[in-house]
């Protein structure tokens, strides 16, 4: 049965969270004028603050810019830089560029997917890891490369990747 006092607590907590994030959004928006050309900078700033673009935020941005919500969604899904779901605290990027591919990055990606139990583009349930692929990182001399939280690991192999994840790729 629902325990109303717990439900109440959760509700209070959620409301509290909502208030804080609403305040944060308001702060971000306060430096804009509400012109439609400000959409992308706003989305970027909101993503920086929240790690992704939460739906309620996108709706509020739509209201602020007097643009249809569907347009905000269209722009957010068009650009690869925007995320609509929260990312993990650690972002692992496996390079799938030509040089890395030739040197076996498919196997590395497979290994990482197996270890984390997610596919590329997904995030582990506890928001620990997000796994992404990139087309080329520009470090072909070190191919194949894996980038964890911005740190480049060169000459990667599947066993090395496994080791790295075991130690915690932070």
């Amino acid at each position: 049965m629902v325990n109303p006092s717990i439900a109440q607590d959760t509700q209070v907590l959620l409301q509290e969270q909502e208030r804080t994030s609403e305040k944060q959004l308001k702060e971000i928006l306060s430096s804009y004028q509400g012109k439609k050309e400000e959409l992308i900078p706003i989305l970027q700033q909101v993503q920086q603050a929240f790690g992704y673009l939460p739906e309620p935020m996108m709706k509020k941005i739509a209201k602020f810019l007097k643009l249809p919500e569907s347009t905000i969604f269209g722009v957010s899904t068009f650009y690869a830089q925007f995320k609509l779901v929260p990312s993990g605290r650690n972002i692992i990027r496996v390079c799938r560029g030509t040089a890395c591919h030739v040197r076996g990055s498919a196997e590395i990606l497979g290994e990482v997917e197996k270890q984390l139990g997610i596919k590329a583009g997904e995030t582990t349930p506890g928001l620990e890891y997000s796994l992404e692929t990139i087309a080329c990182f520009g470090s072909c001399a070190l191919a194949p490369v894996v980038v964890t939280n911005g740190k480049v690991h060169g000459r990667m192999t599947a066993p090395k990747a496994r080791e790295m994840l075991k130690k915690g790729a932070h």
Partner: protein
Amino acid sequence: MSTSAPTEVKERKMDTIKLTINGRDVIAKTGVTVLEAALNAGIYIPTLCYDPDLKPYGGCRLCVVEIEGMRGLVSSCTTPATDGTVVHTETERVNRSRRITMKLIIANHHGDCLTCAKNQDCELLKIARYLGIEQEHIDRLRKGTQVLPVDKSHPAFIRDPNKCILCGKCVRACHEIAVVGAIDLAFRGNSAKVTTFGDEPIVESICKSCGECVARCPTGALMPKWEKPPAKEVKTVCPYCGVGCSIYLGVRDNKIVSVRGDSEGPANKGSLCVKGRWGYDFINHPERLTTPLIRIPDVARQAGHNGRVQEIFREAKWDEALELVANKLFELRQNYGADSIAALSSAKCTNEDNYVMQKFVRAVIGTNNIDHCARLCHASTVVGGIAAFGQGAMSNSYSDFEKTELFFVIGSNTTECHPVLGSLIKRRVKFGGAKLIVADPRSIELGEYAAVRLPHNPGTDVALLNGIMHVIIRDGLEDKEFIQERTEAFEDMRQLVERYTPEAVEAITGVPQADLEAAARLFGEARSACILYGMGITQHTTGTDNVKSIANLLLLTGNMGREGTGFSPLRGQNNVQGACDMGALPNVYPGYQRVDDPAVRTKFETAWGCKLSDRPGVTTTEIANAILGGDIRGLYVMGENPVLSEPHLEHTRQALERLEFLVVQDIFLSETAWMADVVFPAAAYAEKDGTFTNTERRIQRVRQAILPPGEAKPDWEIISTLAEKIGQPLCYQNASQIMEEIASLTPIYGGVHFNRLDNDSLQWPCPDALHPGTSFLYRDGFARGRGKFHAVDYVPPAESISKGYPLVLTTGRVLEHWHTGTMSRRSNVLNELYPNGVVEMSPDDATKLGLIEGDLVVVASKRGRVETPVHITEKSPPGLVFMPFHWREAAANILTNDALDPVAKIPEYKVSAVNAVLAVLDRASQDNAFLARLAENPAEALKEYEVTAEEKAALMSGDIRKIESWLGKLDERLKTWLMLRLSQEKW
């Protein structure tokens, strides 16, 4: 392609240009694109993304042409035509490019053309043929293998992204025409598609179901679910609201199988709303009345019904039913006089039906007891408008809205009640630079587009308008010249509004002073302004005062009698304007000629060849009391449903039960028809000829598309035959003949004849056969001479909130439904989109009452109670609840107040004091006083009742099992409600 040879114009007009297309000289209007210039000259250029109603897009790249002097190929739809431009539309280079583009479009298209419902009208297919695309071309390209899920969520249409070519027409129609923005292009590359916010099914989005997208889709990506290709199309007028959209009904096998907006329709220019486009299937509904019905003797006339027609009525032949009614009416007249009979005419019927009905009542029965539902919607407009201007109709036209600088919308939820007009206002504000002021207690959609929102308390319109005028006069923004030259009685009004300072007005209306001032300045400074209003103004005990205040504001600022200005009461029903014009009112003959004016009466007596009564009759809202008082004994109802539409329904039902004789003429067995002694089956709008007059006084032809079901007949024909049975035949052969008689007796319709309406419409006043009709009134003077100011003081609504009834109930319509639901609830699409009634409540009030979305609640006023689910929405401000009145299962009018405006006799639907309680709690506490008290005030309940320490502890800790052990088993929802209530109590 027709190529009417361009006439070599010697003297070219100033606003034209000359260009050369494919070696031919073409004259075009300045400002058109190359594509438009070509199309207008009959030169075909293939295109998939061009639509004359939408802004140039340049998306499909099929309309490319060569223009001399320009590099490469240019898209003709985005290139302005300039004088001297030389264009080539069919060179090999052009067609090669088009073919490549086309192949790329088709490469991703599923080639199931044979079974695609669009195949005959598919633009893609047509252009592919035109360009000569061959199978081998397509085979060479990689075929799209992706199969995307089809969105079938909407009851009216499907969205198949596999057939979508991303031309963006649907997106642009949604943004630019409907101004809704439910869909847009999203995602990228191969995944790009048209979708809603969050990629949700369309029915869960903000889509308003207007179908502007479906109407424009060039392929089968957006397809109606139920439409069939029609065998023929018939042009007529939409039967729903008063906007008067011109439509084409698609007919096949004596059934309506499609509806299409008429792009030349003066009111809608092709646009339609959800009701007009999808709500047509009620016509073919199996419950249509097909034969006269006679109540079985001894079956009591009770409100409410069990759904078994055979137990209440028996089918009868026309002759028998008509004779019965004729005899009964004759008998009543013999025994109690003509005034013992009353009739309700109908705003849904044609002008011809209404004319014949009022003539029947006046000339055959001999009474002026005729009224119709305009009493319930715009009676105060007629009274107020006549007092101020001499005429109660809308003074301007939609064409004025195209020019107006400022819209002031008060008491009208335009986007839901007059959707096509609502979109026009949104377009004017969003793209045309017009400004908007919205005054409404609820947060209606138009508010999002407003420069200033004035959320005033319900029923405080006079104070609000007086406040605005106070500021305008204080700041010297009034039109002194206009006041001087064209108005009278200004001084009294000026003195009165002096008291309505912004502070005083804020105290009454709740509108912040700064907003009031901003609105007043906007209105005072606008060069042209219109005031659009609806039931929020009229349905009050102060309805007439409200209308007079609107007139005051327009006169004060000189916003009358000029293009782009004016007085715009938005009429709710397809032909409510016409029904009023036809004299279906107790005090006037057709054309507002007074029954108590001897000269007028003589004219009608001569024309109709009989004596006429000089006593104005009773109004719709007075009929119930007149029945209960024994004055009225027989009632003839044509196409109205008072058992759901009157205020304080219990009272109305009791009255109707007391009638000696009730005849109802309708297309369905309405709630009122269930109570009738005799029911006549009538033809619906698609089954008869006639005319409707829309809210801008535009008279348009209604044309018969199909035959009526069974033995149903047009209303005027039924009445004519009945008159014959009574012994005073009216002798009409067709609707056109009736209009001839109307024109001969009604000066404002003097020039209206069916032959003039064949290809055109006319706006009254149209006094003679050569008169072109009148787009806006009072150019040279008001109908009463000078416009009259009225000093109108604020009077609060008849009912105010109290401890027992702490919420204000306001009623109205929702987008998907119409009036008592007789038609819209019998439309599958409309019914599926919005299946049942709700009470809308603010999150604040819901929290206070412990309600969650969808909870069944009992809403009660002093007059009655209804049970309905709650919808929690910020549309309602705290303290205000809203109920649509379309559902008999949750009839809002059981609750509404039947207090009347003293002059117009319109009831106060918009303000009733009510309370709301969780339904299970209401039921449980009916026989449990302790529970009732506990729910109301737990701490006090503990003090008032003797409870043991153990019980007290259980209550204070919310131990529901213990509580149940002595209160008895509680409903699950009630348990959670009670626990929450107890946990919130500060003991």
